[in-house]
């Protein structure tokens, strides 16, 4: 299998800040790579260099076998990009948006129209095809944006935080569309802060923080790196958590985590159900205050916490109303 994306020692600086500090990664053709990291980790900068929007300060990158600096024009013809904000023209209809992008990829008029029709259908936008994008909900805009990046059947697709700001239902729908694309053989590089998203969509993951790769592998490999299981308690009053953490410390293989807001204590442990039973014995006298107990395998949140020393920016996907995105005011009169 050949590699659709090869990044070697990539460096990008903005003034005194080094946003990307020697990132190496490869994405095999036809696979999905999840590029994970908190806000400001450098994910978007990597995508911008790979899509020729920014020039690198060091290292090299090849996309679809082409150098992103020397063969920038050819790279642009081979890729599709959906950025963090749905970049659709809100004064054009869904159909017009897609035809315009098709024409700018230098497809013929006929082919642009035909592809626009196909993609509107595939992304369930046929009913809204003749409406201006201004009237679309956030989820619809995102779908239109992805449809636009697919119009010329790119070999490599870049999705920069494709579900940020979407409500849970739109997010699920988007995941299905992305999974379909991956099944169809498109190579995808996807950035996300949502560990659940990467876990679900990506074949392999690269975790970056402060512009550096701190871990890579499949989801299972990353989880194995953390090891053990997690004991989780939810209690009635947050004040109890510190005392409980102290009592259970002898069982823990790593620092227990307290989340006062959700009144939850997470203790990394080794051993199965017996540890759970033992923990409950140790907590005797307080069990009446416990509303939920569980033993689970570490998830990517735990991976993240262990690797970076801090939680992912928003472990729980933010929920927003599925309203049209108020992306600035229309009109540009004098």
């Amino acid at each position, binding site marked *: 299998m050949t590699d659709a994306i090869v990044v070697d020692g990539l460096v990008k600086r903005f003034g005194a800040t080094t946003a990307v500090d020697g990132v190496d990664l490869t994405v095999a053709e036809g696979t999905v790579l999840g590029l994970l990291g908190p806000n400001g980790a450098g994910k978007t900068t990597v995508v*911008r260099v790979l*899509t*020729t*929007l*920014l020039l690198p300060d060091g290292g090299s990158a090849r996309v679809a076998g082409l150098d992103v600096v020397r063969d920038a*024009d*050819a790279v*642009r*013809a081979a*890729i599709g*990009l959906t*950025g*963090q*904000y*749905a*970049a*659709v*023209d*809100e*004064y*054009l209809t869904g159909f*017009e948006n897609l035809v*315009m*992008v098709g*024409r*700018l*990829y*230098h497809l013929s008029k006929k082919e642009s129209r035909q592809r626009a029709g196909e993609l509107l259908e595939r992304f369930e936008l046929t009913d809204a095809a003749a409406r*201006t994008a201004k009237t679309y909900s956030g989820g619809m805009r995102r779908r239109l944006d992805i449809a*636009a990046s697919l119009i010329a059947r790119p070999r490599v697709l870049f999705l920069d935080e494709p579900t940020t700001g979407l409500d849970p239902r739109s997010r699920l729908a988007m995941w299905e569309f992305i999974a379909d694309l991956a099944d169809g053989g498109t190579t995808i590089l996807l950035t996300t802060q949502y560990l659940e998203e990467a876990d679900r969509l990506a074949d392999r993951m690269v975790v970056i923080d402060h512009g550096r790769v701190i871990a890579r592998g499949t989801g299972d490999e990353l989880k194995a790196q953390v090891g053990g299981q997690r004991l989780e308690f939810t209690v009635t009053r947050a004040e109890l958590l510190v005392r409980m953490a102290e009592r259970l410390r002898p069982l823990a293989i790593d620092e227990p985590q307290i989340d006062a807001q959700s009144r939850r204590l997470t203790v990394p442990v080794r051993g199965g159900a017996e540890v759970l039973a033992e923990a409950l014995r140790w907590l005797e006298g307080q069990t009446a205050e416990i509303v939920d107990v569980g033993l689970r395998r570490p998830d990517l949140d735990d991976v993240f916490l262990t690797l970076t020393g801090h939680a992912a920016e928003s472990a729980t996907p933010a929920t927003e109303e599925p309203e049209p995105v108020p*992306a*600035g005011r*229309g*009109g*540009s*009169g*004098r």
Partner: protein
Amino acid sequence: MITVGQTVSDSLTITRRNLIKVKRVPDLLVFATLSPIMFVLLFRYVFGSAIPIQGISYAEFLLPGIFAQTVVFGATITGASIAEDLQKGLIDRFRSLPMSRSAVLVGRTFADVGLNVVTIAVMMITGLIVGWRIHTSPLEAVAGVLILLLFAYAMSWVMAYVGLLVRTPEVVNNASFIVIFPLTFIANTFVPTNNFPSVLRVIADWNPVSAVVQAARNLFGNTAPALPVNQAWSLQHPAVYVLIWVVLLLVVFVPLSVRTYQRTASR
């Protein structure tokens, strides 16, 4: 490589896209034409009642000035629209496409020429109603309109550069107002310059806007032998002087804007 044919077709695609917006947001065109109509009426009847111009009615003197002022102000639309596209991430999308590197700017400035044609037509009709007349051949009149459009086109490229630098439509509007207002007022736009204080008069005489206005007056025949003759070379040869400015502005700002566009990212 991107061919010349592709550059033309990309530019037309973007022009079309910008003109569709004008169609979808009629307020844009309404306000773009209402304010010049207002200016024509206000100046014609308020200033016109107190400003006697020798040998010619104030309406005839005024209209070419208003034409020039309006198209120069119209250039801010170019800057504001580019800034808006940047803000909304559309420039990022365009820059990730295998399209011509200059098409977004060429398409934008082309669309604004279209907008200016409509605005000038509306102002001309208003002018005819309030007593302005063309006294020259249709060919000369067309040349007068062309001079206005050419200078406006060059100004559009200046504002496109401003839009790429400033990145916020509101700031483009306010910032350019500070420059464009004096640019169109320290000129022969609304009154003859012969009574200006001496320094101001030199500035006004060599202001390219004065030359645009003078060229338009000559080509529409809105002059009179009784009008004081201005000896400045720029106003003796206004059309040539305007063309020099147009070439100068385009030679500087087209490459500058295209280069900036290529390096600009939305954030």
